[in-house]
């Protein structure tokens, strides 16, 4: 399927460029790490209270690092005007959306991959269960789906990258609530079956917003 190949070409391009400069990933990782550190000092995360706050800390670190990555993926295109090159290509504009989405997901997943073991070690809480990872994946998917669309939106405004969190956070509250609650229940010892409602909500969110973003992306980039 040539559509799929073009989507993957965009992903390949972004990954290749990132491998060379390591700009985006390094800033995301540092930011995530710093967030965790700040929360450690802000809440004095001792052993007895850590389970209460940890899910929130995890999601906030992902959210903030994610904003960095989402922004940069489009800002780089805009600064060099290279978005035009993508728009010239003989492919449906939604391919650009999916290409960017997959790229963003990859970067955020890498951050999460490093964040989970780090937090496991720092706070002595086992975060590497499959159920937790599933919740993280589903939540990140929804977050990135909306975030990619809004990042493309934001760079068209005067405020540019500052606009993204303002637009994004109110709309991703379902992901946040579901993500934090699900992780919290899992850390309390609940099984996957117990948090099914949250998982369903995340799946619904992902489906609805990927579909909506795919349809609306065209309107963001048209001239």
């Amino acid at each position, binding site marked *: 399927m040539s559509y799929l190949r073009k989507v993957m070409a965009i992903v390949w391009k972004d990954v290749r460029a990132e491998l060379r400069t390591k700009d985006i990933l390094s800033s995301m990782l540092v930011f995530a790490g710093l967030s965790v550190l700040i929360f450690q000092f802000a809440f004095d995360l001792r052993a007895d209270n850590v389970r209460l706050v940890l899910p929130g800390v995890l999601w906030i670190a992902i959210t903030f690092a994610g904003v960095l990555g989402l922004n940069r993926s489009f800002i780089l295109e805009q600064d060099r005007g290279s978005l035009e090159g993508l728009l010239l290509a003989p492919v449906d504009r939604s391919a650009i959306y999916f290409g960017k989405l997959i790229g963003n997901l990859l970067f955020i997943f890498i951050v999460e991959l490093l964040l989970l073991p780090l937090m496991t070690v720092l706070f002595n809480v086992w975060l590497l269960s499959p159920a937790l990872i599933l919740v993280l994946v589903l939540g990140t998917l929804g977050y990135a789906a*909306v975030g990619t*669309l*809004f990042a493309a*939106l934001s760079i*068209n*405004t*005067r*405020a540019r990258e500052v*606009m993204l969190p*303002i*637009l994004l*956070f*109110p*709309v*991703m*509250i*379902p992901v946040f*609530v*579901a993500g934090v*609650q699900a992780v919290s229940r899992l850390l309390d010892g609940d099984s996957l079956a117990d948090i099914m*409602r*949250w998982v369903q*909500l995340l799946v*619904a*969110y992902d489906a*609805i*917003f990927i579909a*909506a*973003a795919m349809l*609306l992306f065209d*309107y*963001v980039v*048209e001239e």
Partner: protein
Amino acid sequence: MTASKKSSGKDTLWLILLALTGLLIVVGVYLSILWAPTAVNMPTEAEQLAQRIFYFHVAAGWVGYLAFGVTALAGILYLLKRQRRFDNLAVSSAEIGVVFTAANLVSGSFWARPTWGTWWSWDDPRLTLAAIVLLVYIAYLMLRNAIDDPERRARLSSIYGIVGFLSVPLSFISVRIWRTIHPAVIGTTSETAQGGFDMSGNMVVVLLFSIFTFSLLYAVLLHYRLKLEDMREQVEDLKMQALAEL
């Protein structure tokens, strides 16, 4: 000649509606404060009085959601038809919606204080949802503010309006599930939370009256706000013309 006659006819109609709305509001105030029966399971008099805010609070909330729906719909219509009037409708409705939603939140606080002892509670899903809706509205208006080109502003804010509106039911569900798992611990009993009192027949009458009045108020405000937007557009056009002739 006929055009101005027609428009002055319409203008008169709206003036009548405006006057009517004002009248209904006065009647509504009387009904909710003096005529509506006192809620049954409210222990103190302060709570009983505060409960009457309910009629205002719910109606304001209802209009807030309605206005948001109109904004989202206008956004869809703009993307499909590309007519400026749809964007005008979207922004007018959003501005009015912000006011009503904020009124919903503030009146909710005034009700909460004597009833629950706090100005705010995160435990009530509907209050939390109203706060979320307010944030989306504000983000919408901030987005519009950050774009100078009218076409781009209309197009991009339409997109945000649609996505924002889609997120509201999901936010509601998420907060709902959250709060049924952790029941309210604030306040005397959870029955004093919204909808916790028994609604007698007359209360329903007053509530419906309120909602109707507020909807009418919304329509009237929308009309005048739209006229303002039309005038603004005309000024913009005249400016363009003048600049082009320089």
